[in-house]
C-alpha cells in the first residue's frame, strides 16, 4: 500500500487528527451525559424526594396517629367516618376532636388551634399527606370492602408520631395490585387493623370476590 501523499488534496484527511479525536470524545461524552441525565431524571421522579415518601408536612396541630391509633387503639373509622361508604375517607370535624378533648387536655397548648377552631367556627386546614393527580379517581370504600387494608397504601400509620406518606402511590403501584389483587387482600376483620395479618390459603378462599375483572381497564381509574 502506498503511503498517503499529504500534499495531494484528495488524499489528505479532511479534518486534523485532533479535531477527529475531539469529535469522538464529544460523541462518547454526549452518550454518557444523555444516559446520565436520563437515569438521573428517572431516579429523580421515582425518588422519595419527588413523591415525598417519608415526609411529614407541617400540620396546624401536632397530631400523633401513634398515640391515637396505636396506643389508644381508636379505630380508623372513628375519625375517617366515610371510608366505608364513599370515595373519600373523610377528615374529622373539629367537633370530632372535641368528643374527647372537651374533657381531656382541653387547655393544653398543643390543642390551642383546635379550641380556637371550635370557638371561632373556623375550620382547621390540614396539609394533605397522600395525594393523587386530578385525573385519577380513587374510591376508598370499594378498596376497604374488598379487603385492601388501610396499611396497604398508608403504611403503618399506627406507628407514626407525625403522619408521613408511606408509599409513592404511583400508577405502577396501583396497576401492580390491580393486575393481581389477591395477594393484597386481607380478611374483613383485618382491614382496619394496624398490622393486618396475611391470610392463609384457607382464609383466602373466603375473601370477597369480584364479579367482573375490569381492574386494568383505563376507565377503572381514569374518567
Amino acid at each position: 500500500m502506498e503511503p498517503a501523499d499529504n500534499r495531494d488534496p484528495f488524499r489528505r484527511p479532511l479534518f486534523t487528527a485532533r479535531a477527529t479525536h475531539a469529535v469522538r470524545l464529544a460523541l462518547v461524552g454526549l452518550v454518557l451525559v444523555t444516559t446520565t441525565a436520563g437515569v438521573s431524571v428517572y431516579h429523580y421522579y421515582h425518588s422519595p424526594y419527588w413523591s415525598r415518601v417519608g415526609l411529614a408536612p407541617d400540620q396546624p396541630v401536632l397530631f400523633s396517629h401513634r398515640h391515637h391509633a396505636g396506643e389508644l387503639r381508636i379505630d380508623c373509622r372513628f375519625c375517617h367516618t366515610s371510608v366505608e361508604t364513599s370515595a373519600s375517607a373523610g377528615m374529622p370535624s373539629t367537633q370530632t376532636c372535641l368528643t374527647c378533648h372537651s374533657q381531656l387536655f382541653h387547655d393544653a397548648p398543643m390543642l390551642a388551634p383546635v379550641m380556637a377552631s371550635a370557638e371561632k367556627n373556623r375550620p382547621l386546614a390540614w396539609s394533605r399527606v397522600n395525594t393523587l393527580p386530578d385525573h385519577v379517581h380513587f374510591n376508598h370504600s370499594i378498596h376497604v370492602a374488598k379487603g385492601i387494608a388501610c396499611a396497604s397504601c398508608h403504611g403503618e400509620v399506627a406507628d407514626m408520631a407525625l403522619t408521613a406518606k408511606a408509599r409513592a402511590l404511583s400508577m405502577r403501584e396501583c396497576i401492580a395490585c390491580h393486575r393481581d389483587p389477591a395477594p393484597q387482600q386481607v380478611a374483613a376483620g383485618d382491614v382496619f387493623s394496624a398490622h393486618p395479618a396475611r391470610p392463609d390459603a384457607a382464609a383466602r378462599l373466603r375473601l370477597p370476590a369480584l364479579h367482573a375483572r375490569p381492574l386494568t381497564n383505563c376507565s377503572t381509574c381514569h374518567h
Partner: protein
Amino acid sequence: MSAHCHSSTPPAFPPRKGNEFLPGASHWPADLSRREFLQLMGASLALAGLAGCGRPSSEKIVPYVRPPEMTPSPDAAWYATAMPWQGYARGVLAKSIHGRPIKLEGNPDHPESLGATDAITQAAILSLYDPDRSPAPLRDAQVSSWEIFEREWLVRHSDLAARKGAGFALLTEPTTSPTLLREIHALLDAWPEARWFQHTALPRYDRDGTQDDFDFSAPDIILSLGADSFYQHPAALRHIRAFASRRRSENNALRLNHVFALEPTLSLTGNQADLRLGLTPARIGVVLNALSRALEGDDLDSATAALSEIERRLVRECSALLRENSRSALCVVGPELPGEFHAWADAFNARFARDAAKKKPALRSDGDQRASGGLGALIEEIEAGRVSNLCILGANPAYTAPAGLDVAGALRRVAFPVHLGEYVDETARECAWHLPEAHFLETWSDLRAYSGTATVLQPLVEPRHAGRSAAEFIHTLRTGESRSAYDLVRETWRAGNDSDFETRWHGWLDRGVIDAVSAPRTRTPSPTATATASFPRFPGEMAPRGVTVLFRASANLHDGRWANNAWLQELPQPFTALVWENAALIDAGLAARLSLKNGDVISLETSDARLEAPVWILPGQAPETITLPLGYGRTHGGGVANARGFSAYILLGGSNPWQRDDVRVRRIGKSATLVCTQGHFTMEGRDLARSLTASEFAKAKREEDPAVTLFPAWAREGYAWGMSIDLGTCFGCNACVIACQAENNIPVVGREQVARGREMHWIRIDRYFDGDPAAPRVLHQPIPCMHCENAPCEVVCPVGATVHTSEGVNDMVYNRCIGTRYCSNNCPYKVRRFNFLDYRAPEGSPVYLQSNPDVTVRERGVMEKCTYCTQRINAARITAEKENRRIRDGELRTACQQVCPTEAIVFGDLNDPSSHVTQRKQERSSYRLLGELNTRPRTTYLAKIVPDSAGESPRAQESFA
C-alpha cells in the same frame, strides 16, 4: 331487513365533499398573530419545563367545624325541589357535591317530570353560577345594600300605609306559588288602593278560568293545530311520555296512534304527525271547515272541493278514522292561535275525546280576581299619573314589551321604580333601585305543577350574592321588616294548629311533592261544549294580503330569560341546527319569490317598528309566512346574551299578538353568516335514520348479525355495555345533549369555533328532512359514540390513547392523547371531538363550581368523546361490588338516558338476556348505523314506525334546501 328510508336526493343541495372539516377548521384564531403565537409557545415551553421539575405542591384539607345536621355522603347529596317553568313547577332532584349543586335530574315522583327533564331544565344549573348574575343591590346604578333600601322604603312605607297604598303598583309574572300569592294578597288586603299587574311575554295556557288537561296515551287519533304540547307546554314532559307509549313496538307488538297536524311553523309536536301540513292559521280554518262538514256527514267530495290534493288527503284520512266508532280522538290547539280554534277543539273533544280531554280550574294567577290587568293597563295607570311607587318582580318588560308600549318612558314617569331580578337587565337599568333575586336553588319557595301538585322548593346553597326571594321581598314591602323565605313558606303550609306538621314537612321535602293538601280548592268548571254540539265554522280565507309574520318562543331561550346561558346558546336549534342566534324562518316559496337564500337579510316594517333579520329557509313552513323566534337580541342580558340575533318583540302587537299580516317584507341586499352545525338537509340517499310503515314492520326480519371479520372477537365476560336508541320516540328535544354537557364537563366553544366545526357536544342530534316536500317531516337521530367492537379509531391511534375495555366500552385516555386526530379522521360516525384550543373557562370563573368532580376537565390538544358515562358505570359497579352482587338492570343509567322524556335511549348489559336493552335489540326494527362497515357498534337504533296510511305519501324527489 327490508327497511327503507324515505330520503330523497336533491339536485339543488350538493353533498359536502372533499374536506372533512369545515373551511377554516385548521386556521388560527383570528386575533392571534404568528408572532404572538411563537411568543406564547416560547413562554409556555419555558413554564412547562419549570413546572415539570417542581414537586407536586401540597394541598390543604379543610373539614367541617361542626358537621351538618344529617351528614350526607361526601360523594353526593340529592335534594328534591322544583324548577319554575313558566310559573309552574317542574320537579327535579338536585345533586350536590361538597355543597356545590352540580346537576339536575327529573324527580320520578313528580307528575310533571316523571323522572325526565328537558334541555332548559338541564341548563338551569349553569345559570346558578353565571358570572353575570346581579351581584348587589344598585341605587341609580351605584352599588348599595339591602339595609339602605329598607331604610329608604320605611319612609315611603309609612306614607303609603297612610294612603292605603294609593300610588303603589306591583308588576309580577303570573305564578302558581301559594306563598307568593299569599303575600301579594296580604299586601292588597293591607293596602286596598294598591294595584297588582301581571305581565308574561308568552301566551297563556288558561281560557275563561280553565286549563286543559290532556291524556296523550289514550286517544287513537291526535289532531294538533299549531300546538307544541310536547316541548313548550308546562306539562310537556308528561304529554310526551304518554304519547311515546303509543309510538314504540314492545316485543314486536304495536299500538300505534294516528297523528295529524296543521300548523303554520314546524314544531316538535307537529313533527310527530304522520301527516303534517304547514298552513297559515286562516288556511287551517278552511281545512277545518271541510273536516267539520265531513264529520257532520256531508259528502266528502263536496266538503273538500276547495282544498288542495294533500289537504283533501288529510281530511279524508282523518274523517275516515274518526268515523270508526271505537276510536277516541284528541284535538290540541296552540295557545298562539285565536279563540275560534279553541272553540272548535272543544267541540271536537266533546265529541271524540272521552276522558282524554278534561277542563280543570286554571292554576296560574293570570286570571286572578285581585289583579288589575297586564302591562298595557299598568302603563295606562302610569300615564294617568296614578303610580308613584312601582315594584317589578322578575319580569323584564323593557325587553319583552310589544311594540307601542313605551316601558322605558313610562318608568321614567314613576318616582320610585324598583326592580327585583336575577340580572341587571333592560328593565333594571330603567329603575331607581335594582335588587338581586335569589336563584331557585338558593331560597325557599313553593310552586304548583300544571297538574296541581304542589312542591316545596328547597335551597341547596346560600345565595351567592345578596339575593332574596320574591315572597321575602313582598313581605318587606308590605311590613317594612324582613322575614326569611323559610318561615313564609312554612306558614303557608302549616294548617292551623298542626301537631304533625314537622313530620309531614320533612316528608314533603323528601319526596319533592306535597300530596295531602295539594289540590287547590276551586270549583270544577262545567263543560263548555257537549258531544252533540256542531262544529263552529271559520270565516273563509281572505284574499291574500301579503306575508304573515308569526312570533314564537324560541326552543332554546324561551322568552329570552335563558339568553345568558351559554349551553343553550350553543345548542343547535331543533330544526335549523343554528347556534348562537336566531333567524327569520321563511317558507321556501316566499324565499324564492323574494330571491332570498339562507343568510340574506330582510327588512320587516310595520307602521311603528322596523327590524332587520337574516332568513333561514325552513321546509314545512306555511306558504307566505315568516316565523320570528323570540328571546334573542338582548341588549343588557349579560356577556353571553348581548347582541346575539335580533329581538322580535319590537314587532309584536295588534289584536292577535302572535301573528301579524301588516308587515312589509323586502330584501335589502345584505347578507349575514349564520352558523349551523348540520349543513346537509337530507340523507343523500343513504339509510341513516330509518323509518318503516306498520305493514313493512310486520314483514320485517331482524337484521342479521354482521358478516365475518378478520379481527379476533372480544371475550364477552362480565358486563357487555350497549345502548339502543328508538327513533320512533326521539322527537329531537335536545335534552340529552345538555344533560351530557352538564354531566361530562363539556366546554362551550363560542360561535366562531362552531362555525369552524369545532363544537364539542358528545351526543348530537342529526336531523333529516324527508318525505313529500309538500308535507315534509323531520327525522331526528341522536348520535353518541357507537362504541364499535371493531373500532376504527382504536387501530390508528399511535399512542394507545383510545382502547377497548373488557366490557366493550371504547375508552378515551386523555393523559395518553397527543392530539394526532387520526382517530377522528377514521371514525365513520364523526363523534370524536378535539380540543383545538383551550376551551376551559378562565381560571377563577364561578362556572367551575358546576364541574362534575368525577369527570376530568380536558385541556387543549386532547381528543374526547362519549364514554357511556363511564363514571356512572364505575359508581354503580362500586355500589354493587360492595353488596357482593352484579349491577341490576335499570340501576345504572347514562346521563342521556336518564333525562330522556320519551325513554328513547336505553342502556344496559348485553350479557343479561333479560335486560331492557337486550329486549330492545330483539325488536325487528333494530338496526346498526352504517352496519355495512362492519364496525359492530354497541349503540344501535330502532327504526321509526309509522301507521300505514302515512306511508301513502308520494316520495317525490324534490329539494328541501
